[in-house]
């Protein structure tokens, strides 16, 4: 085993320069919103849909990271321990997503037609027991309550081991991860139905929850890659080497293919059976949002498939970062396609200043919270029993 000289880590400081950049980004986002509302005077559904879309993307990053951490813990895998603190800190942003969702609540009537209880058609009446605001709100609270609890509790266990390593540490982490996994599986699907599928309330697809999950996961992996590369570049995580990048690249590659697999499963089955109440979903998208529809598949499948196929591609920092950025934007586009046709419609939906600018605010908010949490703990869990294994392995 080559024993390179691993330099001392540069301690992470959430300093003035970083805060200024984030402030500028937030400002750009807010400016885009203000221009959209006051100058361009865009229709309100479009504004609310954008707020909704960004809140979801914000949540997906944290939730996807929490899932990634816990599933690796359950699988007794160890390579990810060197970047575990990144995933932990991302997970801690989940409770704050609540605020971003609530900010969009005034737009619920625009987004969801089932909220218009005065004139529900026959189909929506049949769904009323589930799609009604009080029950919906209750579920909203339950999802966030549970996810936030796990994000904080898992973090607590992890940080506790830094200072007082204890015997039951791994077992506690595994057990908690197990509980989270079951709860996540159920709540993530239900959240996808509540917050996305019910925008097209007359439509349904049993695969939908898993499909949204796959996009969530790939987005989170892309952001983990970007943060890991940044930290590696600035010497904050000197133990992270090409092997870790390779593994992260494998996940980006593999799960982009998994996303595409779920995409084609849903599309092919609905296309093949040609049942009108199902096909209406895709007809709307292919006819009225055609370019974005196909760009979505190319950016989220064809591009990462070809770009990340070779071994070398996954081990090169800059290349991997660029691919991750493009894929992240691609999944944002996927979310756009999930929301805009149903919430806004062809005449008013478009990729404009608002769609491009607003994400900067949410990105800045996400990173601000992330950096605050990352600073609070050691950059790597050095007392983790698998820590050495994490730094000492090789890919073929």
């Amino acid at each position, binding site marked *: 085993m080559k024993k390179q000289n691993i330099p001392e880590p540069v301690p992470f400081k959430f300093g003035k320069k970083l805060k200024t950049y984030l402030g500028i980004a937030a400002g750009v986002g807010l400016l885009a919103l203000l221009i959209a509302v006051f100058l361009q005077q865009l229709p309100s559904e479009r504004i609310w849909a954008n707020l909704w879309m960004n809140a979801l993307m914000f949540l997906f990053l944290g939730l996807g990271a929490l899932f990634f951490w816990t599933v690796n813990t359950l699988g007794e895998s160890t390579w990810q321990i060197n970047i575990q603190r990144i995933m932990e800190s991302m997970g801690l942003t989940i409770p704050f997503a609540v605020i971003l969702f609530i900010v969009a609540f005034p737009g619920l009537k625009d987004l969801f037609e089932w909220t218009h209880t005065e004139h529900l058609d026959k189909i929506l009446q049949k769904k009323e027991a589930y799609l009604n605001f009080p029950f919906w709100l209750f579920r909203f609270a339950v999802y966030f309550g549970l996810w936030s609890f796990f994000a904080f509790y898992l973090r607590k266990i992890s940080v506790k081991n830094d200072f007082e390593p204890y015997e039951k540490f791994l077992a506690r982490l595994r057990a908690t991860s197990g509980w989270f996994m079951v709860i996540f599986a159920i709540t993530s699907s239900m959240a996808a139905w509540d917050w996305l599928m019910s925008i097209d309330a007359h439509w349904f697809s049993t695969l939908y929850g898993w499909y949204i999950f796959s996009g969530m996961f790939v987005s989170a992996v892309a952001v983990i890659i970007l943060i890991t590369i940044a930290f590696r570049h600035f010497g904050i995580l000197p133990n992270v080497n090409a092997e870790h990048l390779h593994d992260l690249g494998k996940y980006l590659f593999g799960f982009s293919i998994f996303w595409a697999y779920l995409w*084609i499963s849903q*599309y*092919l089955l609905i*296309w*093949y059976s*040609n049942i009108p109440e199902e096909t209406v979903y895709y007809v709307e998208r292919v006819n009225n949002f055609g370019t974005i529809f196909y760009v979505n598949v190319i950016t989220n499948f064809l591009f990462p498939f070809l770009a990340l*196929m*070779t*071994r070398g591609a996954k081990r090169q920092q800059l290349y991997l970062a660029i691919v991750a950025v493009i894929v992240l934007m691609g999944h944002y586009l996927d979310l756009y396609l999930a929301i805009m046709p149903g919430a806004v419609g062809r005449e008013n939906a478009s990729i404009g200043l608002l769609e491009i600018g607003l994400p900067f605010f949410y990105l800045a908010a996400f990173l601000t919270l992330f950096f605050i949490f990352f600073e609070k703990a050691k950059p790597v869990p050095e007392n983790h029993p698998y820590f050495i294994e994490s730094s000492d392995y*090789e890919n073929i």
Partner: protein
Amino acid sequence: MGAIIYGHFTDELELLDAVKELKDKGIRIADVRTPFPVHGLDAALKFPRSHLPKVAFVAGVIGGSLGLLFQVWVFTKGWPLNIGGKPHLSLPSFVPVTFELTILFAAFAMGIAFLLRSNLGPGKIPDILDEEVTNDHFQVILTVKNNSLSEVELAEALAATGALDVKQVNEEK
């Protein structure tokens, strides 16, 4: 007449050390034979990366294209049929077979390339010098042909690395 000098180790770590030593002395190693792939041996012997993945990729592209184009031809030119109202160029339907043929071609092309490149196959007789290589011996083989040293010098060098049972065989490899 080429002489072949060989010896073995009972431990892969010793083998790695020996290989590094021999390489440092500038001796060209004809072959190293092990019961399992030894981690780090490829790097020590400075093997170039195998080209089999490229074979798989090219074959996969060929297989996928053949599959897709054939289906398109069958349903647009060969005998277009109305199956459940689907268009003749029913691309979503063509995805499964295209995918399967891609994998089939890639896998088999690579497998056959592996056998051809390594000169393995049904009926091939291997030149086994030490039957225990497939059990627990890690064998290093040197030839006079590859090196500018004599048999005696090679044998000495090999023995100096700690190899056991250094033998010589005077056959053409």
